[in-house]
């Protein structure tokens, strides 16, 4: 157990020195494996991991969902989503911020990345909020927070990675994210209402629209609804495997963008290259993490951790809460994907070793834990000092200060904690839908 702790410290040290995370994890994994088992098996291990991760059919969902998200961004569906939610909510106090949250939720349903959701929505949602005199804090806070929904509401690249690491059913993980995602939207709406109750000047009401206009605006979102029903409905109904669904979703969003005349050959090539680069980056972080976790497995840290926790005689839920606290702390300094890759291989065997009794269906335990982990990761995306979504907003809207965005995000952060606790204590929120799947 001691060697594993040293390895973690060494790796964190390398990361702080700005060694690329993939390399830091791979190097520590190789050195540790070499010291414990031998250098020639260690070299064989890293070679095999590199080779096999590339050849994994299950992972082909990753580039396809990234591609789908990038096509959807370019197709301009975000404008219609915002327009429609604005038609229904805009006239309320704080209504434009509420519309932003709802539109982010809708966009998340066709995009698997939080960063892409935040980047796309900031371009659509920020200008109107500014026009109506919204405070920068509320405007940017609602976009940064709304964007985090991207990795919870399926499709979700992070859930795919979690599924691969824990060998869980990716379809079930996706379906389990639906209700917690909707809960997130509802709580974010509440956060907006509370903010404008405290400070009415932060979000003045917009214009009220007639019902006719509202229905017309609603018709504009059929594309998003169609893609979501096709992809997620297909997975839920057992018609598609996740890979097939991803391929269909990517093709569908490609045809959409094509029909809407948003694509030239050059744009398609740019989108493809961008998706390929993102994919490659994710894969090499994943490869590094797998080398690291292979080493962690030979240190027996997971089994010793289970024994240690069992000896403490605390309730399993206390353990889960402690794990959550660890995540919230780590989330302050680590980037979200690396955080999941580093910690899940250590924590999931621990979870499997606990006796939850009747609290949860053992078959769905890892699905529930996946949703909890992803929600914590969402929180880390808007937690200072490394909240990635805040950085994305800063690059898209350079005129708004970092402090302003973090201040704006605070109410959303608070309701996120509430949601996290609800999800921990009431697993049915996540597990009801997947328990119906066969």
């Amino acid at each position, binding site marked *: 157990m001691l060697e594993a702790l040293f390895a973690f410290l060494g790796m964190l040290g390398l990361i702080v020195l700005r060694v690329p*995370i993939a390399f830091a994890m791979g190097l520590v994994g190789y050195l540790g494996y070499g010291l414990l088992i031998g250098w020639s098996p260690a070299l064989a291990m890293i070679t095999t991991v590199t080779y096999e991760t590339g050849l994994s059919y299950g992972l082909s969902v990753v580039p396809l969902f990234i591609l789908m998200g990038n096509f959807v961004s370019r197709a301009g569906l975000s404008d219609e989503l915002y327009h429609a939610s604005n038609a229904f909510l805009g006239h309320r106090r704080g209504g434009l911020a509420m519309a932003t949250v709802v539109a982010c939720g809708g966009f998340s349903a066709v995009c698997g990345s939080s960063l892409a959701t935040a980047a796309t929505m900031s371009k659509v949602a920020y200008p109107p909020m500014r026009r109506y005199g919204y405070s920068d804090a509320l405007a940017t806070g609602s976009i940064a927070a709304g964007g985090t929904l991207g990795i919870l509401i399926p499709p979700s690249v992070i859930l795919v990675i979690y599924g691969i690491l824990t060998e869980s059913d990716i379809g079930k993980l996706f379906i389990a994210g639906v209700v917690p995602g909707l809960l997130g939207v509802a709580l974010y709406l509440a956060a907006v209402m509370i903010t404008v109750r405290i400070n009415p000047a932060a979000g003045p009401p917009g214009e009220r629209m007639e019902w006719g206009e509202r229905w017309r605006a609603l018709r504009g979102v059929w594309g998003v609804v169609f893609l979501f029903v096709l992809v997620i409905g297909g997975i839920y109904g057992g018609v598609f495997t996740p890979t097939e669904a991803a391929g*269909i979703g990517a093709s569908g969003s490609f045809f959409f963008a094509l029909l809407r005349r948003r694509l030239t050959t050059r744009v398609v090539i*740019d989108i*493809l290259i961008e998706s*390929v680069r993102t994919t490659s980056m994710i894969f090499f972080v994943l490869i590094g993490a797998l080398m690291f976790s292979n080493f962690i497995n030979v240190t027996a840290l997971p089994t010793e951790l289970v024994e240690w926790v069992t000896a403490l005689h605390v309730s399993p839920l206390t353990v889960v809460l402690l794990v959550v606290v660890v995540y919230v702390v780590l989330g302050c300094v680590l980037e979200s994907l690396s955080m999941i890759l580093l910690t899940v291989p250590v924590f999931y065997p621990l979870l499997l070793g606990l006796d939850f009794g009747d609290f949860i269906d053992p078959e769905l335990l890892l699905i529930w834990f996946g949703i909890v982990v992803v929600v914590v990761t969402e929180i880390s995306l808007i937690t200072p000092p490394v909240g990635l979504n805040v950085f994305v907003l800063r*690059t898209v809207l350079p005129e708004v200060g970092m402090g302003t965005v973090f201040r704006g995000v605070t109410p959303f952060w608070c309701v996120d904690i509430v949601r996290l606790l609800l999800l921990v204590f009431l697993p049915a929120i996540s597990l009801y839908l997947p328990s119906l799947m066969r």
Partner: protein
Amino acid sequence: MSPGPSSPTEEIKSPPGGRLSKALYWLLGGFAALLLFAMMALTFVDVVGRYFFNAPVPGAFEITELMLATLIFAALPLVTIYGEQITVDLFDTFIPNTVRHLRDGVISALSAAALFVLSVSMWGKAAESSGYGDTTAMLNIPIAPMIYFMSVMLALTGVVLAVMAWWSLSGHEQAHSDKY
């Protein structure tokens, strides 16, 4: 903290850097882009074929796997050139420029060395696979060429990193910008 995946933006970007890195961008990026598009089209045809015509594409599974592996390795030099590897730079503002270049140079050099080791080991694996005559189960596609390709891409990325290390350590002007 560099936000890893570049965010999708409306404007068309031209690749930064010198002529060589532009050539690499279009060559490798174009190749990987083609593979991704083919992968999408293949899945589409396979699914439509299976559900509507009861005729899936034979071996689609295998082709997807090979395309996936090839495209992520083809894109690795690009990701490295454009500095898109995920890093955490919490303390960067506190470090003087000269120290930062020294540090970046050392890190790039070490990463290059590691990639060369991995590349050589991968070459051995490729030779082994070629010796056994390994092929995929359904379509009998030989696997060795793809492993050789992985090895070559790892080495190429190593070269990119070695150049970056040299630039950082010798104070080359391009090392002072974020993009190479």
